[in-house]
């Protein structure tokens, strides 16, 4: 009976997500279509200026045909959706390879960065959040709270620039840009891996520091809520040691919301870090999409926007489902 309900709930959530995705895709498509036509012409002109490129007329024809610009928005959208289901996203103008190829090229670096950073966040933020909650209003709590807030308030680009100034320029530990060093080609397989890891240290640090605050605050709030619950008072009244109260009774209950949040953030690992990757010149999905977007590469941008929407929806879906699975009190209706 219960499994049946859960399955029904999941199916319903997925259906709603599909409908939302449809509308988001429609909005993205309309937006792209609403770009002033002179802009498309301008892109075509720039493209035709490049050495060895096709003529302006040919580019215009390709641009309009590729995006069904000659049709109305609804027909064009349906044609685009059809292509999307067949996995045809066209060729990227900026990178001159099929969009899907460029995506496959870049996404794994981003994923690696995101995954390492997420693990670090969990390892640092959750213990600190718990300490802050157990010692509420103490000096430790204040310090941790301020650090968390500072992490949230740090503008990525400023922190990244500071890191570069200190660690690349003054200490000379890392390169300013790029994923691989100068003599990457001469290294053996293990050396190549180490070289990449070395270049990822700064970007991953930046990613971790700027996103650690949110998780820390979340842990602290959840932990406080649990610590104020009646069953914790009961546990204390039974005479349990503070250690077992916090780590056995409270911590496990704190993990319920934490697991759902972390689960929901998993798809986001693929979305890349636009600013960080761009600043450090890491050729990930964020870097590729940023350069596509500012150079008017419509096929890649459309793909990236849709991809981001799918990731957000999947994340929400996972959160909702996990919540329903983990916490039996959640009413399924």
């Amino acid at each position: 009976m219960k499994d049946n309900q859960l399955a029904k709930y999941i199916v319903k959530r997925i259906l709603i997500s599909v409908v939302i995705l449809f509308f988001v895709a429609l909005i993205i498509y309309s937006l792209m279509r609403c770009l002033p036509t002179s802009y498309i012409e301008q892109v075509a002109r720039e493209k035709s200026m490049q050495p060895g490129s096709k003529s302006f007329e040919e580019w215009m024809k390709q641009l309009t045909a590729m995006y069904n610009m000659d049709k109305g928005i609804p027909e064009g959208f349906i044609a685009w959706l059809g292509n999307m289901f067949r996995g045809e996203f066209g060729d990227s103008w900026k990178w001159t390879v099929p969009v899907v190829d460029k995506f496959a090229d870049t996404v794994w670096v981003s994923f690696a960065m995101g995954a390492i950073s997420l693990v670090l966040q969990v390892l640092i933020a959750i213990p600190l959040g718990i300490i802050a909650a157990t010692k509420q209003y103490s000096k430790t709590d204040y310090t941790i709270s301020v650090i968390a807030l500072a992490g949230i308030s740090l503008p990525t680009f400023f922190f990244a620039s500071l890191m570069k100034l200190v660690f690349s320029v003054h200490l000379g530990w890392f390169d300013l840009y790029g994923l691989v060093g100068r003599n990457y080609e001469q290294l053996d397989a293990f050396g190549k891996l180490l070289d990449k890891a070395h270049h990822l240290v700064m970007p991953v640090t930046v990613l971790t520091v700027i996103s650690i605050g949110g998780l820390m605050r979340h842990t602290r709030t959840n932990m406080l809520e649990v610590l104020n619950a009646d069953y914790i008072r009961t546990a204390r009244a039974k005479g349990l040691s503070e250690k077992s109260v916090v780590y056995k009774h409270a911590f496990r209950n704190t993990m319920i919301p934490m697991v759902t949040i972390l689960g929901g953030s998993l798809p986001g690992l693929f979305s890349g870090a636009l600013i960080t990757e761009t600043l450090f010149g890491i050729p990930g999905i964020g870097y590729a999409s940023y350069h596509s977007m500012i150079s008017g590469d419509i096929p890649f941008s459309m793909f990236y926007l849709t991809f981001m929407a799918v990731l957000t929806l999947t994340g929400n879906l996972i959160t909702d489902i996990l919540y329903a699975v983990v916490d039996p009190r959640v009413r399924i209706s």
Partner: protein
Amino acid sequence: MNDKLEHVTEENSSKEQYSLNDDRRVRVLSPGAMVAKRFFRNRLAVTGLAILIFMFLFSFVGGVISPYEEDQIFYRTDTQYKEYAAVIQNKEYRFTSAGADVGFDSIIQAQMVLAMQQGKDSFQWKDVDYKVTEEGENFYSISTGGKMIGITFKDIVNLSQEGTELDFEFQYNALKAFTNGEASFKVGSDTYQLDAEGNVTKDGDDYAFVSEYIIQAVMSDVFLSRDFKEQLLATIGEGKDLFEFKDTDGETYEYRLSYDASKVTWSVRQEKSTSVFDRYSAPSKEHWLGTDTNGMDMMTRLMYGGRVSLVIGFIVVVIETVLGVIMGGIAGYFGKWVDMLIMRIVDIFYCIPSMPIIIILGAVMDGMRVDPQVRMLYLMLLLGFLGWPGIARLVRGQILSLREQEFMTAAEATGIRVRNRIFKHLIPNVIPQLIVICTMSLGSTIITEATLSFLGLGVKFPFASWGNIINDVNDTFVLTTYWFVWIPAGVLLLLTVLAFNILGDGLRDAFDPKMKR
């Protein structure tokens, strides 16, 4: 608790004795005063408030007090050495033709040099006889059919004054006189005097001079006077590399000479002071934080930048809040299909990747060359329009629970209009949460705007914003050399956002009646 009671009774006993049920024994605080009291007890939140007050004063008052304008450009005079002239010691034969169509072309010139080197006084070329005459030292003339068609020489005749033409006749006669050591020569009806150094005078006035050096000005409109040339040559002769010359208008210029042995050339560079943008000048008394890439005062730019960042933040949050409250209020109050519809719209907005979309639109506006001021307006509208769903969700959630309470039943029973029920009775109850979320989103809006401006897609020059001030750091040279260009802006940005977040946190705690402290 006990401590407090004792404290209160002690205080009271020292003044006057009230009976136990006297109202004056109890200090009554309004809810607002309670919130304020809780807020001011939180030292962190007060610090945040203080930082914000400082930022507002800095941005809004600072701009007025600052002696400089937002886009006032400063200049400094910079001495630069510019290529002025070149001196070539002539070691090769030069040719001058007697006229345009006499046929003294390069082949004949080559044949002539050949003949000269072999010591012949005539040669034949294409069935024409040419006669070469040595007129003086390193000075030859060539004639065919009894008519002179050109001369070849190493010493060069220069005019002393601007404007007059050097004709062939004059050159020939001057060179002939010079190479043969004569003291005077005649051209047409004029007689010229010539001294041993090669100076040609006519009726006592300087007219021309003959020398083995060629002096050419780099700029075609500069005429090098004879004095200049003579003094320059004298300096070169002495082997110095610094040369001062007083111009006809009485100004003294300094020149640097450098010798290029491979080209047998001296290049003469004139020291000229030019007015340039006072770029990246280090912090000083006039410019406390130096100047930026355009030669504008950094401190003043920061003040105006703060103004832009804060104003954009506020306007965006106002747009977000108005939209969010209206949509959330309607969804929460009406429920059912209205709620369903509005919440699905909110879901859709949540899914739209806002940063990429703003970047794309920014790039499009770049391409269309949208006016910076209009651009700023679009940016605010866009950020506001993409940011309301969070607030709508919060308002709806609160109202869903509030509308079930007794006071709403009462409001309905008294027949108050729906609009008033929502906006006069429900929304005021959401205000505390709204204030908190608005404060927090002020911080995040400022970061978003700064990020966009940093990428060059938000606020554009000539307007300053903290983000586009830091933009300079994209130049690695600036990153490594000029800390004062980007670190102050970053620190201000960080402090402001941090202060908004701390303030939001403090307000949340203060508004929460469950808070123990």
